[in-house]
Structures are given as structure tokens and as C-alpha cells.
């Protein structure tokens, strides 16, 4: 492996080997062995990403190709039951991200008279870089669990943005879980087993599948394309840019509250894209709307994808090369008082809309240090002035505080529930 690999992934590969060896040595091979012990986890695509760390995995982890995102309503009103659930979920998440089944005994190792403890569809599959990331929604802090005074100031109820057409059945939630993997079956397996463990205590409110990443989160990843056919996330914050992560993503002890330090805020938006209309739009107009060339991904007026956009270049008649209502101008930190976010969205298609069109779009996931000063002004600018809005419809929304990473022996949210 070359020196260019991001730290988390290097650790991931080393850590995975250690964890697998440990599992095999400590417990009986039948019950706790990895699903596919013969596979050497040397490939970053198939290998394991460590669950434990300063920050949760699934944020700066090299964006995997697939995602299953779910929001839960907490059904129990007892704090201890919620805490027990978070502990059980953590155990299952540690196992699954490590390529193991969700529980001891698994799909076929338990009593023949009992339903299997793991649902089984990920048997034989490698860890596939699965990460599972949890977040706490504003409604979790409504008083049911004695958390009202712990609600982070940044965990606002998002304002209504112009053009919002939000479906309550695709919005909100007490908890969210983002599962990302390079194999869709592995991501779905993770969500399905967590939902199963949650029965009686948490129930699925809404969920979203994503089939292709629309952002790069490390510098060695090729910039992927969204369903408009354009490279997306060229200027995203990357895992290697620790200063930017520090400034724009991780909640610091200056921000507070203490339990969220090392965590971040996750904003999810289900953005339907009117791709049929877009596809009838001329290449020139598409490029003007985005502010980039479709082929190379270069900002208008530049040559290569990673040439910095120059917002001060003008063309014939003194009109800006990157239009005043071009997407990349409005979303740029130059136009937003320096505000930046880490994006980790996915393309989706969910069947059709009943009018002969695909229900397709981009499931936006963004992480930022303070949604009030980062995502909100950005989305206000876009919703108000972005030419692209003519082709977009925001119909789902969620906002969650993402607690810091879990230390060995800890559980999701242990800094909050201590």
C-alpha cells in the first residue's frame, strides 16, 4: 500500500487483522468467527473499518458505494430501556462492522427451535467496509428521557426553506442510523438487524437506500457523478484536511455541550431530481446551471477539475463566467463567509412517481460543526437563488447530533447517558 492512504483506512486494515485474530482466539470458532474467515481482509473495498475511535466511522471514512439510512422513533418511555437498546445496538454494530453476525449464534448456530439471531443475508459476505453511524434527533431531547437540558444549541429544528415540499413520512426522527458499505446487502443487513433488535423500543420511521456515492471524502477517490451526470463534491472537505475538519466538522469543547465534543451534526435531505426535464436541457444550460463543464468537471473558465473556481472571471458583455445563480458559486465558501460542510450523499431511485417518471434524486447527507452557521445559510442561498432549484424538490429532511466515537467497552451515546 502506498503512502497516500488516509489514516483511518490504514488503521482500518491493521485494526481489522488484530480484531479478527482476537475473535478467533477468544471464542469458539463456530459462534463468533467472522462470516468468512478464509478471506484475508487486505482489500479496502472488502475489508473492515474499525468501529472504535475518537470520532464515529462513516464520516471521514472513504465514502463507500452504497448506503442504507434509517430514522427511528423511540417507542419506550423509559430511559434505562433506551440505554439498554443503545448498548445492544453498539455490540451488534461492533460485530457487524467487523464482518461478524449480529449476535452470538447467528443465523444457523443457535437452537433449531429458535428464530435465528442473525437474519442471514450477509453470510459469506466480507465486511465490505461497513460503517454504522448513529445520530440523535431534536425530538429525543423533548423530556421523555430527562435529556431536555442536554439538547445541543446547534441541534435546531431546521427552518422552512423556500421551495421545501417536505413529506412528514420522510422527515424527522428521534434517532438515525447511517449504514454505508461497498456491498448493498451488507448495508441493508446492518439496518435490518438493528431494527429487529429495536422492536418494542424503537420503530422505523423512514428509511432511504442510496446506490452510488456522490461525494469523495478522501483525496485518492475519484470524484463520482450525481444523476445530473455532473461530478459532485470536487471541493468537498477531505479526510486528509485535518485543519478543515477541525474548523468545519468536529464539535469542539468551545462549542459544547461536553457530551458532543468530537461529534458533529448530520443534516439529511431527500432531494428529488426532475431528471426527465433535466435531460431535455441543452448541455450549455446544464453547465451554466452547475457552473462546471460536464466532461472534465472543470469550473467554467478553468481547465481541470481541481483548478480553483475563479468567481471574478467575466466573459462577453462583462457577464460572469460562473453565473450569479450558478450552483457552485452559491455553494462556495467564498460566497458563504467561509462556511463549508462535509458532504456524503448518495444517488437514489425509488421506483416511479406514477406519472411516468423515475422517483430519482440525491440523498444529501452533510456533516458540519454548527448547522446554524453552515448548512442553514448555504441552503437558504441555494433555495433562494440557485438556478438548479427548478429541477429539484426537497421532500425529506432530518437533523441529528452525531455523538463522538465510542471507546473500547463503551456504547453509542455513553457521553450523553452517563
Amino acid at each position, binding site marked *: 500500500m502506498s503512502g497516500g492512504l488516509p489514516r483511518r483506512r490504514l488503521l482500518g486494515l491493521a485494526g481489522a487483522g488484530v480484531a479478527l485474530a482476537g475473535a478467533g482466539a477468544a471464542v469458539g470458532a463456530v459462534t463468533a468467527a467472522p462470516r468468512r474467515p478464509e478471506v484475508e481482509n487486505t482489500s479496502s473495498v472488502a475489508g473492515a473499518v474499525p468501529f472504535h475511535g475518537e470520532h464515529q466511522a462513516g464520516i471521514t471514512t472513504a465514502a463507500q458505494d452504497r448506503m442504507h439510512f434509517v430514522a427511528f422513533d423511540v417507542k419506550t418511555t423509559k430511559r434505562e430501556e433506551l440505554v439498554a437498546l443503545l448498548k445492544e445496538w453498539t455490540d451488534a454494530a461492533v460485530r457487524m462492522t467487523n464482518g461478524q453476525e449480529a449476535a452470538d449464534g447467528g443465523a444457523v448456530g443457535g437452537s433449531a427451535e429458535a428464530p435465528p439471531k442473525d437474519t442471514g443475508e450477509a453470510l459469506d459476505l466480507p465486511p465490505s467496509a461497513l460503517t454504522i453511524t448513529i445520530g440523535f434527533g431534536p425530538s429525543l431531547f423533548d423530556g421523555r428521557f430527562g435529556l431536555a437540558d442536554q439538547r445541543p444549541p446547534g441541534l435546531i429544528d431546521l427552518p422552512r426553506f423556500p421551495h421545501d415540499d417536505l413529506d412528514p413520512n420522510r422527515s424527522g426522527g428521534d434517532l438515525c442510523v447511517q449504514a454505508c458499505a461497498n456491498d448493498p446487502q451488507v448495508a441493508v443487513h446492518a439496518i435490518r438487524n438493528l431494527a429487529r433488535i429495536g422492536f418494542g423500543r424503537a420503530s422505523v420511521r423512514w428509511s432511504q437506500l442510496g446506490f452510488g456515492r456522490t461525494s469523495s471524502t478522501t483525496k485518492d477517490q475519484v470524484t463520482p457523478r450525481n444523476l445530473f451526470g455532473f461530478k459532485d463534491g470536487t471541493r468537498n472537505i477531505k479526510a486528509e484536511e485535518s485543519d478543515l475538519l477541525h474548523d468545519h466538522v468536529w464539535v469542539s469543547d468551545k462549542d459544547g455541550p461536553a457530551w458532543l465534543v468530537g461529534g458533529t451534526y448530520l443534516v439529511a435531505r431527500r432531494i428529488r431530481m426532475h431528471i426527465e*426535464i433535466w435531460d431535455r436541457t441543452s448541455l450549455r444550460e446544464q453547465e451554466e446551471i452547475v457552473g462546471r463543464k460536464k466532461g472534465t468537471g472543470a469550473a467554467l473558465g478553468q481547465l481541470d477539475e481541481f483548478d480553483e473556481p475563479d468567481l471574478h472571471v467575466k466573459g462577453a458583455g462583462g457577464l460572469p463566467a460562473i453565473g450569479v445563480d450558478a450552483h457552485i458559486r452559491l455553494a462556495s465558501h467564498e460566497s458563504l463567509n467561509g462556511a463549508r460542510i462535509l458532504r456524503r450523499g448518495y444517488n437514489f431511485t425509488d421506483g416511479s412517481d406514477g406519472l411516468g417518471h423515475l422517483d430519482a434524486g440525491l440523498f444529501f447527507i452533510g456533516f458540519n460543526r454548527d448547522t446554524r452557521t453552515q448548512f442553514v445559510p448555504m441552503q437558504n442561498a441555494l433555495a433562494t437563488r440557485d438556478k438548479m432549484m*427548478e429541477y429539484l424538490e426537497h421532500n425529506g429532511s432530518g437533523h441529528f447530533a452525531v455523538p463522538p466515537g465510542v471507546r473500547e467497552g463503551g456504547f453509542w451515546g455513553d457521553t450523553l447517558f452517563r
Partner: protein
Amino acid sequence: MFTAPLRATLVAAASMSVLAACGGGSTPAAGTDGPITVEAADDACKVARTSANTGNVTFEITNKGTKVTEFYLYAEGDRILGEVENIGPGLTRRLIVEATDAGKLQTACKPGMVGDGIRGDFTVTGEGRKSVDTDTKLADATKEYQRYVNSQADSLLAKTTEFVDAVKAAKVEDAKALFPVARLYWERIEPVAESFGDLDPKIDGREDVIEEGLEFTGFHRLEKDLWETGPQADSPAIADRLLTDVKEIVAKAKTVELTPLQLANGAKELLDEVATGKITGEEDRYSHTDLWDFRANVDGSQAAIAALRPVIQEKDAALLTVLDEKFKALDDLLEKQRKGDGFKLYTELTEPEVKDLAAAVDALGEPVSKVAEAVAK
């Protein structure tokens, strides 16, 4: 709200444009003669090469001075072909200009970003690109469409006046009857009207799209008053403002100079409006008179295509056949929904009827989206 092409074509209509505005796909011809470096000092503007062939010309400007500077490329009469502003001392920035025609140009550095700058001559040689705007058939097409816009604008003003009078006289039923009629003329020339940025949301903004700090006014505010909440204390004032705004937009619409590409894109945008707003019943959510707007958008699209007809006939006759066929199919479907002087309400349509209309709009949208290319041939 489809406003982009109007501006897009304004750029394209100029004889040169930055790479940003050129048709895409082509890579800059940097390989053959490379970028032209410019050293911009406080008292000098050293352009390494002062001639280029037609095609993309790339300048790389380095500010060697102490003041923030700008670099310009001018055509005759100081018409701007390209510029880079705000080049700080020590910085290097890039300007790519597509030179479509041969000619004598001027370069300029403007240390301190003021004045005429330090000028130099610059020559472009080689073959130019033919402009579609010189064709007389195309010129006739734009004139004909301009006449259509003028006549619709006159009717828009007349019918809006009647509607506003009814609202102010608290004649609710009269006002309700006039609402979809006045909107017909608006919807027929929507892309033209919408190109005047701020006026569009004031006249036609829906409640859910009004940005924070702006008031909900215009047709849809009065629609809500008439159908949903009943007349409000400020309904007459809102009506007055609507008329003022409509007067302004009518005056402006009559002065717009359209290019053939704008006509083609306008025809397409009108169908996009149908596909995203009218087919879903989102446009007139209180009155449910969406089919009037639907009809009017299709009328407007048809009028633009009709104006371009001789041009399309000459350049792509097969496309014209398809257009006629698909317009007729959509017309037939729409006419089935006639009721009295107007149309059924959106809420009276069955799901299969909506789906059939949506499919017919898509079927027409595809060939209409090919008109611009045919016109530009």
C-alpha cells in the same frame, strides 16, 4: 421559473464569449500555441503574444505590481469580451476567451481597478464562425414571435385590470371567473415575463416558494383569498400592486429582443413548466384551475414553434412532422377536458387522465428540446 436560456443566449449572441459560454465538449486549443502570459505591473502590461487564431485563447495573468489589478480583453467600442477582476499582488489568474471571429482587439491591465487601463493591441486571425442571427428566416421568426408576445401582453394587462377591479369591488364570483382567464395570457408568455427577475415572484410566486422577508403577493395570494380564506382586509391593496407589477412587466416584455435560440428554449421551458407544476396540480392549489395554465403553456410553446416553422422545415423537416404529431396528440387530450367556457378542475381529473396528459407532455417535450439544435445548425 425557467429563466436561464434568455441570459444564456444573450451571451451566445455576442461575437465572442468566454469558454464558459461555449457549446461544451471542445477542449481549449492550448496545445497548439499555449497560454499567453501577461505580466501586470503598476505601470506596465506585458502581453507575451499579441495575436492568436480564432478558437479558445487562454491568458495567464500574473500581478507583479503592488496594487490589486484587473485584466480585460475588449472588442471595438470597448465591448467587453472577457475580464478577470480582483487579481491581488503576486497572484496568477486565468482567462479563457473563445474568439469566434477575426478582428482587432485590445488588452488592458487596470492597476488599482480604475480608469481605462494600460492598453495594447491584440489581433485575432483565421476563420470565423457563422452566426445564426444573420439568417433572414430567423429574423422573420423572431419578429413574428415578438408580435405574439405583444398581443398577449396587451390582453394580460386588459384581463388583469378586469380581475383586479372585481377583487376591489368584492365581487368574489366575478373575480373567480376572471382569475384563470387573466392567467392564460401570463402563462402563454411566461418565459419572457419570468426573465425580469424580481417581478416574477411578486406576480406569480406561490406561497411555499416565497423567501423569508418577502411578502406573499400576486395572483396566488389573491387566489388564496378568493378560494381559501375569503377576501382579506388587504386584498384590494394586493390587487392594486398586482396591476402595478403587471403593467411594469408588460412594458418590459414589449422591449425584449429575442434570439431564435431563445424562442426554441422558451418553447421547451413552457412544457417543463407543465411537467413540473401543472401536471401535479401544484400551480393553482386553491382554485384547481391548473388546466387553464396547462393549456396556455402549450399555446405559448406552440406559438414559438410556429414562428420558427420555416426554419425547422428547412433544417430538419422530419422533426417538424414529429412536432406536429405530438402537439396534436396533446391538444386532443386537453380538449377532452373542456367544460363550459373553460376546463375541468384538476381535482375532477382521474388518475389515468393525469397520467395520459403527463405522458403526452413528455412525448412532446423530447422533440421540442431538439428544436434549438436544429435552429443553430
